[in-house]
Structure formats: C-alpha cells, structure tokens
C-alpha cells in the first residue's frame, strides 16, 4: 500500500505537474504536495503524487555508512583469511 519509489524530475509542466523518470520509464506525476522542485531533483512518488524530496547529501551519508561497514568487513575478511592462511 505504501509502495513508493524515487523518481527524477525531468521537466516541470506546471505548478501541479511534472514529468518524471525512473530507469527509463517516464510518467507524468502530480507535484502539488512538494514545493521548490527543480529538474534533476529526486522525489518519492506514491499513487501518482510526489510525497517529498530526496536529499542527495543525506543519501550519500547513508551510503558512506554502508561503505564504511563494507571496508570494516573487508578488513575483517582479510584478517580472517590471514589467520586461516597462517
């Protein structure tokens, strides 16, 4: 029910409508619930309506967190491998 996906704003049509894209799928969406949209912004799309803007910096921060863990993991794996190989 709460199915929603991030889509990229391709073009602003009017105050209420924009053209959005996800992975090559294009669709006209309603943007009345979100202020100050620009082309290139990502929004969360739900039942045809943009619910909110995605913050690219925060997204990058979250991903960096995973990255860190991945590096931790790699280090750990290497350590383990080193031990095993010893």
């Amino acid at each position, binding site marked *: 029910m709460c*199915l929603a996906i991030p889509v990229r704003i391709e073009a602003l049509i009017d105050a209420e409508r924009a053209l959005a894209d996800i992975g*090559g799928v294009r*669709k006209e969406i309603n943007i009345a619930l979100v202020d100050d949209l620009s082309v290139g912004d990502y929004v969360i799309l739900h039942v045809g309506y943009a619910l909110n803007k995605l913050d690219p910096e925060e997204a990058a921060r979250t991903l960096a967190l995973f990255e860190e863990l991945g590096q931790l993991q790699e280090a750990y794996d290497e350590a383990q491998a080193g031990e095993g190989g010893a």
Partner: protein
Amino acid sequence: MSRLNIAKGRVEMVHGSGGRAMAELIEQLFAQAFDNEWLAQGNDQAQFTLPPGRVVMATDSHVVSPLFFPGGDIGALSVHGTINDVAMSGAKPCYLSAGFILEEGFPLADLKRIVDSMAAASKEAGVPIVTGDTKVVERGKGDGVFISTTGIGVVPEGLQLSGDQAKPGDAILLSGSIGDHGVTILSLRESLGFEADIRSDSQALHSLVAAMVECVPEIRCMRDPTRGGLANTLNEMAQQSGVGMQLMESRIPVREPVRAACEFLGLDPLYVANEGKLIAICPQERAEELLAAMRAHPQGQDAAIIGNVVEDSYHFVQMETVFGGSRMVDWLNGEQLPRIC
C-alpha cells in the same frame, strides 16, 4: 462478389452470417493474406500429409488488450504463441488453424492489419494457416478481435520432452530477459500512463528449439513462460516432475526499464508474461553445451543457466536473492496482469 471497403468499413453481423458477405470477407481478407493451397481448396477442413513421428497438437486463445503494441499485435502473437507451445515439445511445427471472433463494429482496416501481421508471422515461421473460422458477435459481446490458433507439429525421432521429466541435479536454462511482453502491454494501459522504451518479445522460437534439440537431444523439458511468467512456469514444472528448484536471482536477465516499471507498479518481474522466451531443463553435464548452442542462436544470445533442479518433497521453487538471502518463489497468486496474451 463486391469489394469490401477495407479502408472505411466495419465488421457487421452479416459478416458472420455464413452467407455471401462472409464469403467475401474470407476471400478478400483472410484467404488473400494467408494465401496457400489448403485454404484455396475452400473446404471446411485442410488435408495434408505429415512426416513420420509423434504428432503434437497445441492451442491458445488470444485476448490481448490492446490489440496492437510495440513489437507486435494480437495477430503475430496468436501465431507465435501456438507455434511456441508446439515447439516446446521439441516438435517441428507444421500447420496452424485460426478461429476469429470479431466484434460488430470493429474496423476492417484494423482487422486487415492484424491478419496481415498473422500472415507475415506465419510466413516467416514457415508454418501455414491452413484452415479457419470466423464468427461475429454483437457490439458489447466481444472486444474487437479474439483469435484462437491451434498448431500441429511432428516430434523428430528420439526426443521425449515433457514437463514431468526434470530430475534433481538438472540445470535450468532461460533463453533471455524476462518481463518484456507483459510490461509493454502494461505501458499501454491508459490508466497507468507511463512510457518506456520497451517492446514485446513476441517471436516464434521453433528454430531456436531445433538448434537446441539437435545439440542436446537429452533436454528433459521446455516451456515458454507466458502468463504467470518465469515463476509460475517453473512451479508448474516442479509440480509435474515432483522436484524442487533453486534459482539464482543474479543470473536472471531483466532489462532496466522492465525492472523500473515493475518497481513502479509493485510487480515482480518473475511473474510478468513473456511471449518469446523459453525455459529448458537438461542434465547438468550437458548444460554448458546447451547454453553455448543457445547463445549461438540470435534468439538465445542472452541465455543463462539460472538454477538447478533439486530434490524437494514440497516441490518448492526457491531463489537466492541478489541480496544474498533466500526466498521462495511461489505460484502466482491472484492476477498479475489481465489480458496479456
């Protein structure tokens, strides 16, 4: 005989009456497009000889909506769909029949487009449409055109493919990307209002099949994952053969816009229909050879080994997700997409 006004005319009840108007429709539209010696005989049945071997018969009724879509239309689909069902037994498809149910008011120009497309598909496949039937129903009792096709083929010596032949240890192969047909149809649903560079994969697979069985005659079974998609078709085969299956999600090709459209609609591409793909199950030791044969054929360039048959008294299909977790891949529950084939 008077000339049909194909450009501006419409199907009328009289075209299904059995009388002169029907004869005109058949002669000027169907017989002209399909143009072969059997139809030309004008009998209510076609007669022909078959090469020796086991005979195979398959049928499908086609009710796709919309009737025209990128990559095909109901006409080509009705030829491909039934050829594929025949071919999945390893047979060479030989002859087709076609039954049309037309709705009063359907534009003759659209009908001609469909019939011409069927004729082209049949010619390309080398499988003539040798007999047929036409009915007309009142406006509001049909949906433009429904086409029922039946195919006959002959299985070459030495092949014995059937959905109940899969054995634990066998490899599961897929001939290419999934979901293209179903997502294409969906993209045309006005209520969904999305656009994507997607085409139906509708195609006749018998030449791919011929290459496959020639290379690996030990193939256990083949099936085209149409309605219900890859997931449901594998469940059917697992059930028939009394086995389980294990898939690798990462090995299953899904094109980007198909994946995106599925995300966007809350669909799982595993359950989306295909019209030009096949699943083959073969002994593990022949799998790489079969894969190579498939990849060597233009219709199998993206073929992949997507999993294995395993012992499982529940006959479950399971999958290691791209994420590294494991999940069941159940039968399709409820309807995924109505009227796709």
